[in-house]
């Protein structure tokens, strides 16, 4: 058997794959956070709850209507996005003129309400969600065995990340969005409906979290608390990447997932904290984050 640094190659590659999959979710979630933060200047603490909501919607849709993974992949993010749009319109939008910390505190309260309610009705245990039949089984890549669904997640997350990036950087809507980030008053004066843009942005970010939740359901099981610990890691990812660029959020998401996977191989005890340690190092060397612009 091939060994690298005393570690069997298949074990190393297996952990790398797990790291890449975790990284896919970090990237999807920090992407959503960055999109929301870019325009609204709100750190969306409810992002983990919205991710959980996406997974639970898929689970409940399957349980009550029998609709499987593929319809859920579209329905669940839409439901999460619509709910979030209502919340943004009725409550969050009142906080934009205040210190940004209030947005954080509001979404924190929101996360507690959502997660607490689901925990009350569904308990803390995980509920299994079946892998879609089309992607059951696995493929032997020669050097390792790859479950098809996991390969699909990696590809899907890359596609989602790249298309979101294209949407924001290359389309007309994205141009409005970026302009509104720079100077909302001016864009409003040009006749663009900025409040609507804000609502759509929040819905888009929350929808991305919901989509990540559906993708996660077959891998991590569906549980009310699946988002709460993840969101803190994603916060650290965001601090490492810096909020400056969408691309930065995506790249640091994948990078940290892979680093975490590698840590599991070489020093498993530290795998829980490696992201935070890296955050501490980045703060010492480059406080604005790896891709951050502001000083």
């Amino acid at each position, binding site marked *: 058997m091939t060994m690298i640094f005393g570690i069997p190659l298949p074990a190393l590659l297996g952990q790398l794959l797990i790291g890449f999959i975790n990284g896919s979710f970090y990237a999807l979630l920090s992407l959503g956070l960055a999109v929301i933060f870019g325009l609204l200047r709100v750190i969306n603490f409810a992002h983990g709850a919205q991710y959980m909501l996406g997974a639970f919607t898929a689970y409940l849709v399957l349980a009550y209507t029998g609709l499987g993974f593929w319809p859920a992949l579209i329905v669940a993010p839409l439901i999460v996005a619509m709910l979030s749009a209502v919340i943004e319109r009725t409550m969050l939008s009142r906080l934009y003129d205040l*210190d*940004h*910390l209030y947005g954080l505190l*509001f979404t924190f*309260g929101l996360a*507690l309400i959502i997660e607490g309610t689901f925990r009350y009705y569904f308990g803390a245990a995980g509920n299994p969600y079946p892998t879609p039949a089309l992607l059951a089984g696995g493929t032997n890549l020669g050097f390792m065995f790859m479950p098809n669904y996991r390969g699909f997640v990696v590809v899907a997350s890359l596609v989602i990340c790249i298309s979101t990036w294209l949407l924001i950087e290359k389309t007309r809507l994205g141009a409005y969005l970026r302009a509104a980030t720079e100077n909302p008053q001016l864009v409003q004066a040009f006749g663009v409906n900025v409040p609507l843009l804000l609502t759509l942005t929040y819905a888009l970010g929350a929808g991305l979290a919901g989509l990540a939740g559906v993708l996660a359901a077959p891998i991590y099981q569906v549980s009310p608390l699946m988002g709460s610990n993840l969101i803190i890691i994603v916060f650290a990812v965001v*601090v490492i990447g810096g909020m400056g660029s969408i691309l930065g959020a995506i790249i640091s998401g994948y990078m940290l997932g892979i680093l975490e996977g590698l840590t599991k191989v070489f020093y498993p005890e530290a795998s829980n904290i490696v992201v935070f340690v890296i955050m*501490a190092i980045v703060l010492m060397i480059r406080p604005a984050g790896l891709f951050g612009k502001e000083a």
Partner: protein
Amino acid sequence: MTSLDHTSEIRSEGTDGTTVTPDRKPGQRDLSTIGFVLAGIAVVGLLVAPFYVYPVFIMSVLCFALFAIAFNLLLGYVGLLSFGHAAFFGGAAYFTAHAAKVWGWEPLSAILLGAGGAGLIGLLVGYLAIRRQGIYFAMVTLALSQMIFFIFLQAPFTHGEDGIQGVPRGYLLGIVNLNDPLNIYYFVLAIFLFGFFAVWRIVHSPFGHVLKAIRENENRTISLGYRVERYKLGAFVMSAAIAGLAGSTKAIVFQIATLTDVAWQMSGEVVLMTLLGGMGTIFGPAIGAALVVTMQHYFASMDFPVTVMIGIIFVLCVLLFRRGIVGEAIRLIRR
């Protein structure tokens, strides 16, 4: 940089915080007199309280009130929202519990060890966190406290999920038996009053005035020649140490140190206590803590999830009630 301001509504960035609100306008001196009278009544009330109310409950309120007061030193007076204060509260509880149980230390020295340990963790966390401001500061403190949570989860001396149980209350200075309900009550009250007075002194010292200046306008404070980061770090360490004092005392009172006290939910609870009571006010955090602890006590026996209740109060506070109870009261009196 925007700042959290306790007397006026908080402005968005762009104004650059150039409007400095004075603590009180001329002819409003009487408010501090009211404060002293209320403080006197509160102290007398606390002295006789164990004869009327279940002492363990009041001790729990006192521990959390001190925790919130320590947290408010940072949020209310420097404008820094730490989302990781549980690390100091729960961390100190572990140190104290270990010292009292395994090393057999006398309770007061075990508590001081816990507070000192919390101050040390505060020095490390603060050193990193003050490199970022505003919303990032909150995220960095949250992430670092989560790291500390995992370290406590894995460190052998904390016994993981079980926590450190059966911590002896012991004999204060080798003489006073703290297993006696009244003895431990007055011991906890003394610690609370000491912590309260310490924060009051810090806030009203020249150091505290520089902190408030940083809260109002950091750039202007820098241009006046103050080494702002030293003041921030100093305040962070003091806040962490006093939060640790509260956590250590709780460990002695309840004879247990667990992961609950270091988890991020606890950091959120102390934010809520301070927000509900009124950040940047002297009495607000203690009142907020008393309300939240009472509410948890009440809801524990009901079929309604406490987390949801806490979330609802959070949302209501942020949307409708940003000054908190004491903040609103001050506004009404001054009108």
